[in-house]
């Protein structure tokens, strides 16, 4: 027996409103396919192109706490900013990101990454230099590959020294789509 959709939504809204959730998530539509988005009281926790919900719920519960619930209302601000970005009406995200659990190096790299503006790119080596370790281009590549918050933390703006796109954890075609949206690629 399932419960009425309306009742289910009312509880999820009330839970979001209560402020008691460690993490809320939803699966939202985007031009790049369904996105799993999750946020907690300290900001965005996860954006993923892989909508395998169960695996994400386990991860969120591990990282943020066990009070994890699918609660569209709580991730609504994030969904709205993403919508605006995909419609070309937003060039920077206002919401904060929750990077708990990452190493200090990863955090430095991601903070620098966040500073690359819409429509511009940097190379792995340049980002490594900005993060204070010019020799760490490979480690920067790894950090981009493991980026929990793609799009908002714009790892799609990081490319190879020879101008090649190199790779993208969400699939190279999505990197192409994002760089096209931003006018970097035609």
């Amino acid at each position, binding site marked *: *027996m399932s*419960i009425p959709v309306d009742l289910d939504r009312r509880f999820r809204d009330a839970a979001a409103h209560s402020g008691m959730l460690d993490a809320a998530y939803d699966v939202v539509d985007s031009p790049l396919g369904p996105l799993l988005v999750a946020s907690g009281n300290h900001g965005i926790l996860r954006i993923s192109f892989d909508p395998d919900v169960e695996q994400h719920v386990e991860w969120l519960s591990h990282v943020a706490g066990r009070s994890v619930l699918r609660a569209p209302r709580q991730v609504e601000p994030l969904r709205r900013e993403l919508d605006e970005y995909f419609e070309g009406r937003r060039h920077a995200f206002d919401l904060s990101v929750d990077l708990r659990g990452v190493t200090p190096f990863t955090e430095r790299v991601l903070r620098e990454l966040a500073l690359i503006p819409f429509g511009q790119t940097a190379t792995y080596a340049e980002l490594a230099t900005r993060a204070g370790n010019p020799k760490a281009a490979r480690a920067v590549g790894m950090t981009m590959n493991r980026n929990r918050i793609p799009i908002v933390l714009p790892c799609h703006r990081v490319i190879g020294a020879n101008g090649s796109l190199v790779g993208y954890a969400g699939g190279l075609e999505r990197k192409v789509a994002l760089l096209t949206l931003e006018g970097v690629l035609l």
Partner: protein
Amino acid sequence: MEAVAIPPFETFYAEHRSEVLGLLRRKLGRDRADDAFQETFLRALRAYERLEHGEHLRAWVLTIASRVAIDVHRRAKPTAELPELTHDDARPAYEDLGELTDGLPPKERAAVVLRYGYDLTYDQIAAVLDSSPDAARQAASTGVRRLRKETSA
């Protein structure tokens, strides 16, 4: 023995929501069951981060629902007698200690059964009773004292 892991709240909610709704509809009817449903899972959510193990979560949430139903009755008829707690499959917490605690007031009975029948913590019991851990401890100890008096009389 390894403690039973506590699932993410989403998993817990998905697993028990239809049974909780069924219980509340039987006790309160369709209209009043909806609000009670929300209240039940909000109480559970409030206590969820303090759970110490994942055992008896079904008994726990059904007991919360039973308590919420009693509160709804009480609000509806402030001067009426409290409804008698009945034995049915939806209130498994009362199976073991059911007969023994039959004569206790509902709150003390719930506290005694959850504490000694299910080994729940006072934090968890507080969520069931919608009160503080101290009040839950108080209810359990008053209940036990009352039982001692009855059984020795």
